[in-house]
């Protein structure tokens, strides 16, 4: 296997706030290999969005990178100057956002926006438009010649998400980041978008970093999965191995709480008791220890290092190797 397209190692990011430093990401390491789909899963506020903002170097002003590197195709993203970053974004890494309702400029026509993002090309406006129409047809927009002259509010949510995907893929990036691309859509539309992403994998040559809190989607779309909790990666590895035999108690509880995996009817959905810790006042040891059903005293003593639990698999738990 060649070098991974995206390699993050030991990344720690905190936000300066009036309450003190909020340590949003701590010692995050992951790799996205070529032509693979890597899923990132975790609760709201676990650092998923911070992670992908860091990859595009689009962090908020009060964010501080405390350590670690992000290497994209061998280049250090965090050391790039603004010009190199702009060349990176869009052309080599593209992103699809969560809410298609707000991800497009409401006062510009779709044609204007979708030809606008090809500004680095010398092609004639007609050629750009033609390429845009072809891409819209590819993502399943009926009548793209007419639709392209409409405005975002003329389209439904699912249609808009298709247009966003078309815009992201237009420059043929080697990495596509999808930030919960179906969360804002209803279930049927979600299924259509998932089908679309699956079908695009066939002719889109590149890797996908797929962020979601929907375990079912991750299982369906991804090759590998990264489970995040309170700013740390608690478990990562092959998606089927993790879904079959999760080694971290958080992953296990998460899987138990997935409504799609419940084995019998229950009056109440199971939940994980407790809440995510305050990222400004982290517990001393394992971040999950306060909610963990199998925590030992040793878990609260000091930081936990990731444990290799199989080929390409890691879990950040001292009891990961117990059966």
């Amino acid at each position, binding site marked *: 296997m060649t070098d991974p397209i995206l390699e993050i190692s030991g990344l720690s990011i905190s936000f300066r706030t009036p309450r003190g430093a909020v340590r949003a990401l701590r010692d995050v390491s992951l790799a996205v290999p070529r032509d693979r789909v890597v899923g990132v899963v975790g609760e709201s506020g676990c650092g998923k969005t911070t992670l992908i903002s860091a990859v595009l170097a689009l962090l908020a002003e009060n964010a501080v990178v405390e350590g670690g590197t992000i290497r994209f195709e061998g280049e250090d993203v965090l050391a790039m100057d*603004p010009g190199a970053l702009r060349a990176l974004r869009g052309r080599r890494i*593209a992103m699809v956002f969560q809410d298609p309702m707000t991800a497009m*400029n409401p006062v510009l026509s779709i044609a204007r926006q979708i030809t606008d993002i090809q*500004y680095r090309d010398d092609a004639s406006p007609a050629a750009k438009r033609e390429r845009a129409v072809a891409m819209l047809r590819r993502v399943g927009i009926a009548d793209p010649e007419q639709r392209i002259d409409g405005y975002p509010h003329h389209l439904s949510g699912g249609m808009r998400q298709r247009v966003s995907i078309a815009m992201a893929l237009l420059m043929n990036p080697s990495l596509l980041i999808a930030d919960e691309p179906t969360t804002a859509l209803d279930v049927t539309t979600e299924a259509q978008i998932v089908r679309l992403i699956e079908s695009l994998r066939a002719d889109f040559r590149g890797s996908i970093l797929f962020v979601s809190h929907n375990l079912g989607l991750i299982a369906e779309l991804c090759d590998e999965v990264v489970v995040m909790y309170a700013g740390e990666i608690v478990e990562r590895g092959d998606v089927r191995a993790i879904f079959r035999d999760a080694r971290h108690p958080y992953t296990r509880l998460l899987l138990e709480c997935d409504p799609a995996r419940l084995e019998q009817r229950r009056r109440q959905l199971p939940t994980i008791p407790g809440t995510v810790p305050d990222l400004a006042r982290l517990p001393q040891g394992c971040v999950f220890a306060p909610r963990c059903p199998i925590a030992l005293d040793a878990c609260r003593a000091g930081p936990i290092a990731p444990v290799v639990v199989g080929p390409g698999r890691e879990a950040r738990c001292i009891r990961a190797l117990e059966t």
Partner: protein
Amino acid sequence: MVSVAAAAAGEESRGASALRRLLRDPLGAFGLALVALIVASALFADVLAAYQPTQLDIRNRLSEPTTLHWLGTDQLGRDTFARVVYGGRIALLVSLVSVGLSLTVGLVLGMLAGYGPRWLDNLLMLAFDAVRSFPTIMFALAVVTLIGPSLETVILIVVVTSIPVYGRIVRTQTLSLKTNEFVLAERSLGAGPIRVLFHHVLPNVIGPVAILASMEVPVVITIEAGLSFLGLGVRPPTPSWGSILNDGYAFVRDTPWLIAAGGLPIILTTLGFTFLGEALRDIFDPRLGRER
């Protein structure tokens, strides 16, 4: 599919439908008519007026309105009608030039303040506040005393005092737009700050600011007339509504039509632009007056 095509067609004729709605609004139609009248009289001043506005005729001074001098003559025998229509040129020139300039500069500074680094925002807001903390007329008096009265001085005063008005509005709009996801989406696709500002922020802020500008035109006209009335505006003998008013003021007992000739155009223009601006705001601002 049909509805999409129809919507697209509706989008294309947005200008035409706005005009239709404007004409249906009685005040808007009245405002548009007044503005058209004033603009036409200023444009065709040399055709409409039989005399030059600065042509003296001392023997005929303070003449009553006659068929030759429709609005009479002033104390130097100049034809008042000619001075009124040529004064319209000055009023419109001052207002359009200064509104255009302050709109442009205000837009750019406002976008920079809203999108740029924090220190630039603080600096620009400090400058805006400093300018706005002077009463306009006191500021104008100080500037005229320093650099002398002229057409350019009037424009300078108006531009400097109204840049903060546009700048503040544009800054606020930019601040709220920049947190919008579509700006983040554009940046994630490689757009730099210039591209984000001019391709994405500008089309979103131009509407409200243009309406504000149309409401600013009458304000500028009254400032120009006010300064000229005080003798601090355009230099005589260049005609201005303010100086016509001032000339007539001295002879108000004998020739009241001079006051009317200077005052009525100011009132009509102010009314016209205000009605037009308000009607446009109602049409283009979706938060105000729904279908009326």
